[in-house]
Every structure is written in C-alpha cells, then in structure tokens.
C-alpha cells in the first residue's frame, strides 16, 4: 500500500472504530442508568465512580474527541483552501477539543481522589 493511501486510511478507520465504540457506550450507559424515576445525585455519583464505569466513560471521551476531530478536520479541508487559514482554524479546533478532554479528565480523576 502506498504511503499516501495509508495516510488517508488511518483517520478513516479511526473514525469508524470510534463511532462503533460511541454507539456501544451510549447503549451501555442507557441500559445501566435506566430507571423509571429520575436519577438522584447519589445514584449518579455511584454509577460514575464505579471504576469500570469511570474507565468506560474515559474511553468514550477519547473516542468522541477522535471522532469529532476527524469530522471537523474533514469539514475544514473541504471548505477552506488557504493553507494559513487552515492551520489557524485547525489549531483552534484542536485546542477546543483538547481543552474539553482535559476538563472531563479532571472531573473523572480529581473527584475520585477526593
């Protein structure tokens, strides 16, 4: 396989794989959280900080970030042709996504520590 083909193939695969995980996660979360009463704070905290769930949510976040990054990158590449503008906008996108990711990891990790 040529180098350039493999360069295009990687994001394509990542986007599909992350999509599958996202769907599976949503199903799992709905099933394991579902109850006919509205969820109480204690139930929510217990669910979220069960170690298995914390990890599953963390992986969901990574999958979501990758999926969103590839999607947004495709949009930028399709509509913006100027190299400088591309770099600028892609940088902003990455910053936003990384910022969101770090914020969620803070919530998942620091709350567990306290």
């Amino acid at each position, binding site marked *: 396989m040529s180098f350039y083909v493999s360069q295009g193939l990687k994001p394509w695969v990542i986007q*599909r794989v992350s*999509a599958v995980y996202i*769907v599976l996660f949503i199903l799992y979360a709905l099933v394991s959280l579902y109850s006919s009463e*509205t969820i109480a*704070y204690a139930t*929510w*905290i217990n669910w*979220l900080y069960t170690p298995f769930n914390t990890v599953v949510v963390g992986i969901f976040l990574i999958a979501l970030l990758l999926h*969103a990054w590839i*999607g*947004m990158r495709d*949009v930028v590449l399709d509509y913006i042709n100027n190299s400088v503008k591309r770099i600028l906008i892609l940088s902003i996108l990455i910053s*936003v996504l990384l*910022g*969101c990711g770090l*914020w*969620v990891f803070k*919530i998942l990790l620091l*709350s567990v520590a306290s």
Partner: protein
Amino acid sequence: MGIVSFVHRITGVLLFLVFPFIIYLFSLSVESQESFNSARQILNQPLALLAQIILLWAIAHHFFAGIRFLLIDAEIGVEKSRARLSAWLVIIAEVFTLLAIACVVSL
C-alpha cells in the same frame, strides 16, 4: 439524498459546538448535591427542553446517516436508486426514533 449527507455534516458540527456546554453541565452534576440540582433546573427550562429535543434529533440523524455511509463504504446501496432509498430509510428511522423518545419521555 444529498440533503441527508449535508444534514449529517451539519449535525456533526452542531454536536461539536454544543460539546463544551454539555461538559459544563456534566461538571455541575458531579460537584455537589446543590450544583447537581442547579444542572437539573437548567435542563428543565423550556428553552433547554427544546434544545434537548433538537440535540437528540441531531444525534439520531447523525447516527442513522452515519450507518448509511458505512454501508456505502461496504459497497452496499451505491447505485443511485438504492442510495435514494437508503436516504429515505434514514429519515424514517430518525422520525421513528424521535417519536419513540417522545413516548418514553412523556411516560
């Protein structure tokens, strides 16, 4: 057909734009009982309820149109007539999903 693809893209961007706010609500929900209640109150505002419906629809469309793309990747439904059919199936699926959610929510 082209509309389904275009809306798939739009819903993707929309979900991306909403993401930080969702994380904010998430952070509220975890901090304390009081902030959890605040988050719930925010979500119960009429405008927020409307936003939630729109976002659920966005996720549903993005999901079903995404599956359509996956099938096309696998060479299923590539011909124009089949592509049109699958586009309509996507629309039917998301309307059905929305109705199902409306039923569940009103129970």
